[in-house]
């Protein structure tokens, strides 16, 4: 894929002697790189907190794991609503940067709210809800800005670069958190304050380096929540939403897959935290190549292909226990195959879907449309985690995963029929 990248740059009259590291960012608009940097820094901040939150809640505050789980799972309704509303405000005022920046800022302030809330469950719930609201608020306008800053044929790669940078932050976050805990002898409030400073730096980066997109104001057009939902009347977009939601319903949360792996493969407990890192690593490395691939062979095709990778991951993870000697070469090969397949799935679906859906939406309603799509997907995933939890309890881990896999295979056939095989290249304007 890099060979293709070089050739393309040569054709474009690019600097032939470009240094190797610049390949990654070549032809990627500065605004996308700036947004990527903002996401990278923000993810360091948020993953710092995520890494210590279970321990902080359960051990320092004495909440039970179940209470923590409830805190974690509720508030979806609020964030969904705010997400849609935020998208709509961003479209009406054409101030996507301001709306996204508000989301980043809100999440930054919430980091300080955690120690201030003490051990009040209501207080902590509110802080987490506000934090999640900030995340919901910023995602759609940010992705809309990426689509508006990039020529349509390069969208896949632009999103790939953005998501890869984002994942780098997710990698560094836990390390930063444990460095702070180590340096301060387990002062959790210090983790939150440092996380706040990191998040504030991201807001500053955003304010200084991200440019808003000011398209010429066309004739006055309706831009309301109703107009956002009316986007579903656009046939390709409606079908995209349907397919993404349906596939989301049959996607099993990562943690479940890691638990299945741990059980089936008898992984030493100490290495359990490495499993998510393996997936993230594969995602990080594959995001740009798959984004580029999507630009060339069709984004929906790659999106569906990503789900095939996930299907393969389930099949391997749920395979009945055979001769699995712990530590054997075969075992490690199979294990890394599952993690790489999962990373492949994220690389082929997360940014690629936004790159595919963006051009289907008129510019003046693009944020609303992306917000709608993301909300549908997030709701479906939440529902699927409840569903899968129930299936796990009822039938056990392996069979539950197989059932989800069969469902996913069926959904893929339907999705293939729903989705256009190639994204229409000419951008829908105005």
């Amino acid at each position, binding site marked *: 894929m890099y060979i293709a990248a070089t050739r393309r740059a040569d054709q474009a009259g690019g600097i032939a002697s470009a240094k190797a590291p610049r390949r990654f960012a070549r032809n990627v608009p500065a605004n996308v790189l700036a947004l990527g940097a903002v996401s990278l820094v923000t993810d360091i901040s948020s993953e710092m907190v995520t890494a210590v939150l*279970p321990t902080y809640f359960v051990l320092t505050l004495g909440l039970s794991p*179940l209470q923590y789980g409830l805190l*974690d799972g509720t508030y979806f309704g609020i964030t969904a609503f705010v997400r849609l509303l935020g998208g709509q405000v961003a479209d009406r005022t054409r101030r996507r940067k301001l709306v996204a920046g508000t989301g980043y800022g809100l999440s930054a302030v919430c980091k300080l709210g955690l120690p201030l809330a003490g051990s009040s469950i209501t207080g902590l719930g509110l802080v987490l809800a506000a934090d999640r609201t900030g995340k919901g608020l910023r995602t759609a306008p940010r992705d809309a800005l990426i689509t508006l800053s990039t020529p349509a044929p390069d969208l896949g790669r632009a999103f790939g670069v953005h998501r890869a940078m984002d994942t780098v932050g997710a990698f560094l976050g836990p390390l930063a958190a444990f460095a702070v805990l180590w*340096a301060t*002898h387990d*002062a959790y409030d210090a983790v939150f304050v440092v996380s706040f400073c*990191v998040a504030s730096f991201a807001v500053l980066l955003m304010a*200084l380096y991200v440019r808003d997109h000011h398209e010429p104001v066309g004739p006055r057009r309706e831009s309301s929540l109703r107009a956002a939902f009316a986007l579903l009347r656009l046939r390709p977009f409606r079908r995209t939403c349907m397919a993404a939601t349906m596939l989301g319903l049959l996607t099993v949360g990562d943690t479940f897959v890691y638990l299945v792996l741990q059980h089936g493969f008898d992984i030493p*407990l100490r290495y359990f935290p490495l499993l998510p890192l393996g997936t993230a690593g594969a995602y990080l490395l594959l995001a740009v190549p798959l984004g580029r691939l999507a630009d060339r062979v069709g984004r929906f095709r790659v999106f569906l292909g990503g789900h095939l990778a996930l299907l393969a991951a389930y099949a391997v993870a749920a395979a009945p226990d055979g001769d699995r000697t712990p530590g054997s070469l075969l075992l490690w090969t199979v294990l890394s195959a599952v993690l790489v397949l999962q990373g492949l799935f994220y690389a082929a679906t997360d940014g690629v879907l936004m790159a595919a859906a963006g051009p289907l939406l008129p510019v003046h309603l693009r944020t609303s449309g992306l917000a709608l799509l993301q909300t549908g997907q997030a709701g479906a995933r939440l529902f699927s985690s409840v569903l899968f*939890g129930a299936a796990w309890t009822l039938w056990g881990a392996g069979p539950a995963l197989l059932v989800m896999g069969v469902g996913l295979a069926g959904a893929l056939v339907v999705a293939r029929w729903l989705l256009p095989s190639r994204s229409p290249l000419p951008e829908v304007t105005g």
Partner: protein
Amino acid sequence: MKRALGLLLGLLVLVGVAVGYSTFAAGREDDAQVRRRPLDLAAGGQLVFVDTARKGGHRTVAATAMDPAGATGPARTDSGLRCERFAVGAATGVCLQTRGGPLPGTDALIVDPAMNVRRRIELAGTPSRARVSASGRMVSWTVFVTGESYNKTGFSTWTGILDTRTDYTLINIEAIPLTIDGKRYRSADVNYWGVTFAADDNRFYATVSTKGRTYLVEGDYANWEAHTVRENLECPSLSPDGTRIAFKKRSGATTWRLHVLDLATMRETALAERESIDDQAAWLDDHTVMYGRGRDVYATPADGSGTPRLLVAKASSPTVLR
């Protein structure tokens, strides 16, 4: 140029705040001077617990003197050993200690009476329960793992048993052949937690959950089998005379009430504690149960009479050494 200058200025201020606060937080620890003295786990007449009074989030094993009437003295001796859960039986202690670094998790430390670490077992997840048999021979612990990130649900426990006589260690007991209501039961979703040992160092009780239900199981270590005894009963704790089990019984989505089950009559009695308690209780003596409530340790009569009293403030994981 202006932008770069603004960014640099902002960066300097933020780094200043981050470093300044961290330095303050790290230094704060030194203000809370505790008397670090070696504990003697072999000595009687003391209550050993995890001290949560220290600022900065450090929790360490401490002890306080206790008279035969069950009243504790005000002074506490801090061992300096960092633990989230701690339990002791005769000459053996078990400490669940969180581990930072790139591979965070929990270690189970086996300590001798002078609090020297004899063995370290590397686990994952968050510390939950720890218990040692009265003789000090059998050790058990539970850690749990939840989703690592927002919007990811999932809950799993890992319970291990260590026989200090042979040093044989089972990291996860979930493969133990299980009989539910007289029928051999097989399911991948079984989770065990909260082990308590009988005086013979062979029989034990624990909680098992499967398909959304929880049961009290009675296990046999030598024959390696377990069978359910009763439903809706979590975190059992066998009384010193072996006749009753203190446990928590689910009373709501995330609330539990403490009860005591009489093993001869199988009658259960609700204790006087009205607050929701999520802890594996311990026995102060044959008539009194103690447990973590909020961030303190309380005690209440085991027959359901009386009212709970504060035993040790800012403490958890109590064990009494007679």
